[in-house]
Structure formats: C-alpha cells, structure tokens
C-alpha cells in the first residue's frame, strides 16, 4: 500500500481480532472442556418407561463459563466494535438504556395474566401501536409479528383474507420486483401465492410497462420496498399505487428501508395499504446475532378488521385522568388512568405467534421512539442519507445507480465482491452486503446509518480504497487478522457436522 494515497493510508485502522488457539484449533467447545454423563433411571420420580436413561452435557463452574462466553464474545464483531455498513440491515447503534427499560421488573409478566392486572403492558403496546401508525401513516397496527418476514407473512395473509372476504379468491398472484428481499418471495409463497417477478427499468426502478403487463385480475398484491434495495426512491409510486388499485390489488410496503424516510415521507401517504416495520432496523433494537427482532404490521382502515388477534385498544368506558403536563399534549404524559383491553378484530386472520410476539423487543423500540421524538426521528433519516452520500463520494468503487438515499450499491467491477468483503475485515470494519442485488455486478450494498461520524466514515472509506488497490491474490487470501482465516464453505456443506456429537471419532 506504499503507493496508495498517504492521507487514506494514515486513516487505516490496524486491527487484530482476538484469537485463542488451543491444540490446533480455536477456543474449545464446552463439550471439550467437560462432558458429564448423568444416569437418571433409578433416581426418577417417574416410571422407568417415561424417563430417559441418561443425559450427557458439560458440567462447568461459573468462572469457567464466564471465561468461555467472554472469549466467544471477543471473537465477534458487533456495532460497538466499529462501523457495520451491512446494506439492508440498518445496523445502527443500540442505545444502552433500552436494555435497562426492558429489564424493569414490570416488564416480566406472563401472557395469560388478566388484562386488568397488566394494564402497563397493554398501555405500552397501545402507545407503540399509535407511534408506529403515525410514523407510517397507517390507521391500525398489530405488534404480534416477531420479525420482518413474519410481518410480510401477516401482510400476505391479511391480503388473502381481504380478497376472500370480497369474494375475490381467484387472486392467486403476488408481484415482487426482481431486486426485492428474498423474504418477499418466500413469504408470498408460504401464503400459497404464485410469485410474479418484476424486472427493473434501466434506471433501477419499477418498470411501469412491465408492471402493467404483470397486473391482472389475478393480482393479490404488489410488494415493494421504497427506497428500493438500490437506495432509489420509486418516483412513480403514486402511479404505481393507482395501477395496482385499479386492478383490485393491494400495495404492500416492505419496511426494511424505512430509516431513509423517517419524518420525510410515509408509506400511507404514498398509497400503500399494508406495511411492516423492522423495529430492529429502524428503531435500533439490538440484532442479537440474528434476532430477536419484531415486525409490526400497519394497515389502512379497510384492512384493520383482518389483523391478527388479539389487538390492544383503549377501553371505551375508561376515563383518562388529566394529562400531567400543562400544555395538554397527551404524548408528554406519564402513565395514565386510561384502561386498555384486548379484542379480536371482526374478520381476524387469527394468530401468527403463540402469544403477543417479541415483547421485550417492543419495549426497547417504544423507548427509542419516545427518546428521539419527531426531531430525533427526522434527524436520523437526514444523517443516514447524508452519511450514505458522503461515504459513496469518498470510495473508489463506482456506484451505478442514483440518486440513492440511506444506502448505495457500489460495484466491485472486475473484483470479486466477496473477496473485497473478506479483505475489508482486516481493516477493522464490517463489510457491506455482497453480490446482491444482482442488478449491480459484484454488488457492495452499503448502509452506514446515521450513527457514524465523518471521521469514522473516512476510516471506512480508507478501508474500501485500500482494498480496491490491493492485488487479487491478497484479496483471495483474506482475511488474515480475524479469529479464523478464510473458511471453506464447500466442506461445511459437503459433510454437514451440525453438533458436537458429529465430531466424536
């Protein structure tokens, strides 16, 4: 890198991830630290034939376990480790205090409690429904779906129930843009629909002619992300909504990219009928190494009777005490005297989770929204879009489609995007999402979010640019400073070893 840009080089971070090497492998498994077999037979309070014979698991002391998990945590890169511009995943900082509110004793209640004894839980859910409705421009919200894909599935089921209710069960197709999230296709298929894939136009947006050709009396819904996965706003969204509605279809909003629009535009105002929110993206609840998230669904009035059961609402016979603040703004009030109740919507699709979804995640999302308020939410989208634009302007990889918003898709060009990503790991940053969407060759889908400073973005850009200037061999050998070196994916899939039992000789 001696021939590189000296300014950029100076900004490069040297990074070595923790690595414990023990007898030719990394940190041993719990089962390699201890395996203790407990014979159960005679000691069981149950008859022999109802009892298992034995259980063999590690028996380790608390200090040993504390070290085990601390070491494992050191072999993970999280948002608190450095920038995490994983496109489409909105890896923004997770405020620490939200963990504290989720850990409040009052949050620890059983779902089968009487409504009268969990008014606090119902109030929080009701307030969060209200917040989300305002943010998305939706009339009614369910908080039950436990993830974005679960929200999509709810949207699909709601659409199906709506069409069936109207005697239109001949609608058997859901249209999904080619560049959409994989979950859109899978959720529509899980709902029993034929998926009609829609190509993009030359500028990376919905091709109106292709849409016109795809729409018919068979159309149940069009699923759309806006801005789309290239970060582009679908400028023709009003016309798209009219086209879908004209054939009797519904317009579904995939909320994955909502962070770009907070306080700037609302799906409800664009003509969307149903949407999901990814609270682990837009509202900063921790991603937890893959989850839990939550995927609340908002709908327009006409679809509200079909939402999952039960929903929460203010009880009509309740009386609300005087709001505690002088200006009468109800949002400023603390917990009130209003009574809340659960109810089943008239034509409900029923249950999509055994209880009420990922409650603790919803508590964190509520706290985040209540902390930021109008100004904070609008500032989040402003800074997210500014950051994406700035970062794109500082990297040497081309960005074929624009103007983009909170994320952009760069092209690694002649380089292998996966190799670029592996090498970026050596510079102490998490790489972008790679090789998707496929409309951009060797895609590097990059979403820095609002939480990065200019300085961090400069370091991130320096990592992109350093890698851009390195030779193919270096990239192919990367990473070299992470806990593990390049991992053989083929070997993992060819001979699946999915538990420590499979490692016994």
């Amino acid at each position, binding site marked *: 890198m001696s021939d590189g840009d000296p300014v950029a080089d100076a900004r490069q971070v040297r990074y070595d991830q923790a690595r414990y090497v023990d007898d030719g492998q990394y940190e041993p498994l719990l089962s390699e630290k201890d395996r203790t077999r407990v014979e159960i037979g005679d000691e069981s309070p149950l008859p022999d034939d109802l009892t298992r014979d034995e259980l063999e698991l590690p028996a380790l002391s608390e200090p040993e376990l504390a070290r085990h998990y601390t070491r494992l945590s050191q072999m993970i890169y999280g948002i608190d480790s450095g920038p995490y511009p994983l496109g489409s995943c909105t890896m923004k900082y997770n405020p620490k205090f939200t963990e504290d509110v989720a850990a409040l004793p009052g949050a620890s209640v059983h779902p089968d409690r009487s409504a009268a*004894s969990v008014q*606090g839980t119902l109030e929080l859910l009701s307030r969060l429904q209200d917040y989300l409705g305002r943010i998305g421009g939706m009339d009614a919200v369910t908080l039950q779906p436990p993830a974005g894909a679960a929200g999509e599935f709810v949207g699909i089921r709601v659409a199906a129930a709506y069409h069936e209710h109207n005697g239109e069960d001949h609608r058997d197709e859901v249209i999904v843009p080619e560049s959409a999230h994989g979950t859109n296709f899978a959720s529509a298929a899980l709902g029993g629909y034929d998926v009609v894939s829609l190509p993009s136009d030359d500028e990376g947006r919905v091709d109106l002619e292709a849409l016109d050709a795809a729409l018919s009396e068979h159309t149940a819904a069009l699923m759309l992300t806006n801005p789309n996965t290239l970060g582009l706003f679908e400028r023709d969204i009003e016309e798209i909504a009219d086209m879908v509605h004209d054939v009797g279809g519904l317009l579904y909003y995939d909320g994955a990219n909502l962070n770009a629009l907070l306080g700037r535009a609302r799906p409800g105002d664009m003509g969307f009928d149903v949407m999901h929110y990814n609270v682990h993206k837009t509202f900063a609840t921790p991603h937890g190494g893959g989850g839990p998230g939550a995927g609340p669904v908002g709908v327009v009035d006409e679809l509200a009777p079909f939402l999952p059961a039960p929903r929460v609402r203010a009880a009509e016979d309740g009386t609300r005490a005087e709001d505690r603040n002088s200006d009468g703004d109800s949002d400023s009030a603390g917990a009130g005297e209003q009574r809340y109740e659960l109810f089943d919507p008239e034509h409900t699709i029923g249950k999509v989770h055994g209880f009420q979804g990922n409650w603790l995640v919803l508590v964190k999302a509520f706290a985040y929204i209540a902390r930021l308020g109008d100004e904070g939410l609008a*500032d989040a989208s402003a800074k997210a879009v500014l950051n994406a*634009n700035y970062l794109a302007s500082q990297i040497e990889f081309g960005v074929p489609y624009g103007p983009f918003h909170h994320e952009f898709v760069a092209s690694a060009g002649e380089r292998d995007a996966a190799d670029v990503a592996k090498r970026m790991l050596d510079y102490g940053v998490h790489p972008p999402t790679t090789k998707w969407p496929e409309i951009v060759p060797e895609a590097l889908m990059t979403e820095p979010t609002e939480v990065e400073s200019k300085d961090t973005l400069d370091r991130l850009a320096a990592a992109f640019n350093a890698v851009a200037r390195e030779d193919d061999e270096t990239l192919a050998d990367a990473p070299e400073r992470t806990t593990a070196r390049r991992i053989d994916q083929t070997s993992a899939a060819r001979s699946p070893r999915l538990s420590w*039992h499979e490692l016994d000789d």
Partner: protein
Amino acid sequence: MNGAETRASGSPYAPHTADERDAMLEAVEADSIAELFDIPDAIRFTDEFGIDARSERETRRLVRSILGRNENLTELLGRGHYGYYVPSLVDHLADRSEFLTSYTQYQPEISQGFLQALFEYQSLLVELTGLEIANCSMYDAATALGEAATLADRVRETSGHRVLVPDLLRKERRGTLENYVAGTDLIVESYPTADGAIDADELAAAVDEDVVMLYAENPTVRGTIEERLDAASELATDADALFVLGSDPVALSLLQRPADAGADVVIGDASVLGLPTSYGMGLGLFACREDYLRQVPGRLVGVSEDATDRRAFTLTLQTREQHIRRERATSNICTNQAWVALRTAMHAAALGPDGLVDLAKRGVTRAETLAERLDDLVGVTAPVHDRHHIREFVAHVDQPAPAIAEDLERRGFAVHVVGEHEVQCCVAGVPDTELDAFVAAFSEVVR
C-alpha cells in the same frame, strides 16, 4: 453534546457537528440535506408525528411509570410460557455488546464466537432430543409447529392432507399452525384425548392414510406426561405420516428421549431456559431426523476448516434459505431468535446436566406436592387427571373457576382458568415460601 439528561434537538445517536455536516455536504456537492431526498413534493411529509423528544432519564421514567401499572402478582402460570429463575451469569454475559449488537454471521471469519455458541446450542438440543439435527432457532413453539407442518407437506410420501393435533392444544398454537398451512392443501383437525392425554383407541380411530402429520405434546399443555407416545408413533409410521412432538429443554432433561419415542421432529419453546417471564416472547425449538436435512427451515451452523486447517464454524446449507432460494426456500424466516438461543445455551450450561435433571425432577415432585395440598382443601380436587405431571396440573374447584381466580388475584396470585370449574397452577419459578402463601390464600378463597 447530547447528554443523557437533556432532550436532543436531533438524534442523540448521530454524532455530527455542524461543521462536519457542512463539510460532508460540500463533498457531495449539495447545499442542504433536504436536497438529497429524491421524493416528489406531492408525497413529502410536512406535518409532525406529535411525538415529543425526551431525555434518557425522562424516557426511563416514562417506561417505568407505564410498566408500573402492571400489578405485582405471584404467577402460578405456565401453559407454554414459564418463569424459571435465570442466573445473573446469563444476563451479564449475553449482554456483552458483541453478542447483542452483531447480526447474522454472513462473515463467519469475524463471527466465530457467536457461531460457536449457536453450534453449542444445536448440540444441546441434539443431546436432549436424540435427533441428529437442530436448527438455531424459530420464533416460538407455535411458529415452529407451523414450520413442522410445512416440512411434512414437503417431505410426505402420501397424497393425504390431514394434520392431527390434540384437542387440548392451546388455541393460539393451533391458530398459528392454521395460518402456516393456509397456503397449502393441508387441513388441521383435532383428535380426542382422554383424561388429559392420548387415548390409543381414539387416536387409532382418527388416524388414516390421509394423515401427513401427527402432533402430540409431552408434557401436554395441562402438565400431564404422555404414556402412549409409542402408540402415536406406530400409528404415524403406519400412515407414512410425520410424528411431531412438542416439548421443552427442561422437560426433555427427564422425560423419555423423543428419538426413543419415535419422534421425527421435535418442536417447542426452548426459552424456558434463558428467558424469564417475558409476556410470551419465546424461542422456537426445531429438531428433526437427519433424513430431512435438506428440508430443514431456518439457520444451521456447521463445522468446517479455515485456511490454516483449524476447525471453524459457519452457517451452512444456506441454499435452503430465502436469500438464495427465494420462493422455493424451506421457510421465509430470516431474522430469528439467535440471542435467545445464546441465552438458552448459557442457562443450560450454568445448570449442567445434574442441575437440568434436578430442575425437571423438582418440577414433578413440587407439582405433585402442591396438588396434594390443594386436594386437602374442601371444595378442591387436584390433580383432575390421574396422570403423572410436571410443573403444572389442573385442579377442580366446586365454585366457579373465574370467581376463584379473581379472588386469588386480589390476594396477589395469578392462576389459569381452563374450565368452568377448573383452574391450572404451575410451580415453575415459584419459591416454596410463595407456594405456602398460595395454599393459604387458596384455602381462604374456597372457604
């Protein structure tokens, strides 16, 4: 700076100074941030949400005041969601921010720690179920049951379409299952149980070659332990149907291994370990026989080697998943419950095999003891079912059950009402002293 005690004028988590913002705008050749938004005027949002910004301290106070409205009751509640004590070790280590703030391990080289923890979680479930494969999470037991049914639809060898579930099944769990199969030609039907468990003759009458999946739970939602899983398994096998068993890691530490009972798939809520009572938030356990490897829903962590030939972990067999297979994926799941799985593995490790077996045994003996004590009260018969129980049981009360439950609630105790004259009580996580107080309250209520 935007401190925790002040209300921010923008996002308190966006660190830009005005100078930095201006420098960045200059770099992108824009005069204002607004200019970067390519949104047609007609649909720009110019109004306000009406949500006030708060300081961190104010927000904490707000949530505390809202949740403070929840009454502090001793919960003798179970029926699929349990409140076992979770050791501090779990909270403190799971809250390490590398665990909490990372995402799916798309870059395994930099995510070995989480992958190893999930591999250990999978291994725990393989040990408990005796089945060869466990994925590293579905959302909860209900959605895992739904996924089991779509698996049955994919792998079946018959042209049938019936999914049989016990008549005792929680209606929420059944409702979720019905939504999952709504896009298939499967239909969900109940088979009758007798005295809180499978009746082999009734079940035999319900099963025919049209059945593609037979579901049973052990323990049942009423806390009874199944004695005729062998019959269920045989009937399923004869019908070429998938035998799916619902359970959880605590019960599995003591009860007959599902593999020995002939189960093809095990589902359930694994967060009985790892999560305290959380208003139903869970962790979908999903384990199955090796034969269904290519049809498993959700994420799988496997072993591989890195460029130095050292053992390394990675997500594997991803061609089953939605981001690659799209509408032909085995499931639409993406974001899952990985962090809860981490917590479950930690809790199990903290208990160790002796601790797990002991916890399960105490679930049997303590439920039995509490039932006996309630049975001694006038106007109460417990347990209703002449079966072995774990954790919970149903009691008959001569007075109307809702009135009993309301009276108990006034005295600080929550129980389930499961029939006009039936309440259900669960001992999991309830200390002995509180059980004593509960019995005392119950005796007052039925007096």
